[in-house]
């Protein structure tokens, strides 16, 4: 066990964990931030997507020892009041079915909008690679376009 200080959602948090513990399980089991989901553990499905310095990253594949002082944002920190344009669009278009993968989808989409404020379908195809077995892809695509058009998203 070793001690780590992490910057999560703009707060400094202290954690004692084995060096190889994936960030995903640190968030869930040590910091009780349960919004980030476990799906595959091998960086394939994207259910565990968080932001590290603004980039979408699969937290199941990052050991805590490599996080350092990089800034981590989880779904709980995506917006102060749960009103990020993507969160609003997701609700407006009623995107979710089971909902389990949607935190990861939202984090991936939020990183996409930072790089491409008005993404094309091709850019969405290339950047949103998360798995959803319920098949909400059509509504996810529409919600990303809708959020891109909201004035506050830039």
């Amino acid at each position, binding site marked *: 066990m070793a001690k780590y200080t992490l910057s999560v959602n703009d707060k400094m948090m202290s954690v004692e964990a084995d060096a190889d513990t994936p960030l995903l399980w640190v968030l869930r089991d040590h910091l009780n931030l349960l919004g980030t989901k476990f799906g595959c553990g091998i960086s394939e499905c994207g259910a565990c997507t968080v932001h590290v310095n603004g980039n979408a990253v699969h937290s199941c594949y990052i050991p805590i020892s490599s996080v350092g002082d990089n800034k981590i944002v989880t779904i709980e920190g995506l917006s102060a009041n749960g009103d990020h344009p993507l969160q609003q669009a997701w609700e407006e278009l009623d995107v979710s079915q*089971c909902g389990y993968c949607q935190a990861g989808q939202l984090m991936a989409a939020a990183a996409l909008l930072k790089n491409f404020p008005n993404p094309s379908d091709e850019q969405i195809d290339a950047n949103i*690679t998360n*798995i959803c077995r319920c098949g909400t892809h059509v509504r996810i695509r529409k919600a990303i376009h809708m959020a891109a058009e909201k004035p506050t998203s830039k």
Partner: protein
Amino acid sequence: MESTITRKHFLKVSALSAGGMLLSFSFLDKRLAAQPLDDTVFAPNVFIKIGADGTILLMAPNPEIGQGVKTSLPMIIAEELCVDWKKVQVELAPLDGKYGDQTAGGSGAIRGRFAALRTVGATAREMLVEAAAITWKVLREECTADNGYVVHKASGKKLSYGALSSKAASLDIPSKPMLKNRKDFKLIGTRIKDVDAHKITTGQPLYGIDTRREGMLFAMVARPPAYGKTLGSVEDAEARKVNGVKNVIKLQNSVAVLATSTWAAKKGRDALVIQWNSTEKLENTSEHSAAFKEMLEKGASSHARNDGDVDAVKQNAAKILNVTYEIPALSHGQMEPLNFFADVRDGKAVLYGPTQVPADLKADVSKQLGISAKNITVGVPRQGGGFGRKLMTDNGVEAALISAAAQSPVQVQWTREDDMQNDFYRPAEMYRYSAALSADKLLSWHQSGIGIGRGTWGDSYVAGALTNYRSDNQGLKSNTPTGWWRAPGANTLAFAAEGFMDEVCVELKKDPVAFRLELFKQAKQDPVGKITYTPDKYKSVVELVAQMSNWGTTPSGAYRGFATWFSFGSYVAQVAEIKMVDGRPKILKVFCAVNCGQVINLSGAENQVQGAIVDGICHAMFPKVTFVNGAVAETNFDSYEFLRMKDAPLDIEVKFVDSDDAPTGLGEPALPPVAAALANALYAATGKRIRKMPFAESLRQAGS
């Protein structure tokens, strides 16, 4: 603040309710007439609680696995209750016999509960109206319920449900409450977003995996690595040395490691040294396929259905078509890997986690652990997908066994590999078709199905529309476990049957839409033998999708395929429109017409249909399960390939046939036909007939 106070009231009611207030599903029984619990709350049955402050809590009785019933079932109550949906709170009901059948499966929740839940809502509404009439000393016929209030038009008086709740609670339950006319529906048929939408988008804990209880340990389990292997010797010294590991429990055929975190439990589990013994045959998919072919060649000993004479008609046929369709086994791959919380101590069991069959779980835990059913509680959180996997109770029973052995509350977490290696798979199947054709007619249809454990069904269309029809059914015994997988049976049969139907159309040079309509006309006018579908309803969706897609006018550069199927009481017709990009289909649009009776939640219903289409395309195109020496070769999403955004349809247009009929199933019916619609579009685009899933593999092989 308001909700906190309300919640306290509700808790109070719940605590008191054990004393006898809340009604069972037989709420029409006068002996169970409502009694006031206290002066603030009206709860005429287990589904409805109305607080004095006007807050309304509705219980969603069936597990929510993504099919939307946590929203749509309470909508039915709210419609008849005449309340403002914005003021309604919804909770998932725990397992309790008073709620009736609490299964999530067979696209059955709405179908099974529509009539009963309307009565539930109407009962409460009539009691509130009655309470107002008594209060105002007017005739109850002069009072109407409106959006959470009762109104007396003549005098302009108005009282909220909250204000009327205590008086209503003292009244007799009406034996035959009046139901609303469909034309007066304000909520049913509209677009209502999921009641958990905001909690989902803000990452609030909702799922079994998010369960956290006092003193809880996390557990991971080492299970046999192959079907046919059983537990031998266990060496756990290294596992116990892992930081955070608290206990190692040997079960009958597995070993659990309990720890203070999920990661520690996994590291401990992976440090076990286990000898697995081969005690049964270790099977291979290649052997299953060979056995299928051999058994199909040999033929079935009896027929599931046999109309006319398919053999005799071949004598005079202009052409005979013989083809074989092949379908692999599949994993469920629900996004939330299995898990379950159990606290089994002192002869009591508290169970909480993902299950589609909470009542079965309770019975199984009672039986296997020898705990009286009355000492077992089952709570069911929102679930990260179901798709039939959790119709099995193994995850819950296993957690109970571990907790009982460890004498500790425990959360058992499965990894994705655990989940895929210990599934109840959609069985691999093979279908052989033989059809006799004249120059312009389909004369006979002979379908022979075989699968692991079971084969096909005999009565689906084209049965009933043809004089000569035969369906054979065989099952291959195997120790690889099989189970229910979204639209069981239909999800494979529709691909084979509707793919082959397209082949028949090509041979006869018939338009696929017109040809189906001819068949349904025949089935209606002169049905042959038993008929298990309504030809006019099939016709309604085929005509609607033809109109939606402007059938017959394919946009340039695009190719189309058509298919239709009936399952779980609902009729679906689809047109898939694709173009080919680098040897793979890009799906431009899917048009889908559905006849499922009345639609409850238009947003949810459309979402189910769109989702089932994407799900069906995903599983037609990409994944398969292969058994190699009893072990599953595809253990995670790197090898068990799932559809990503780039392969999803760009658009899916859904229309529902307007209907006064009671609602039928919708979680599954849109999945079965889409694989055939896509295969038929691929034929139009490439001239190659795809008869084997996964399509991506077939396309690669055809291209090379």
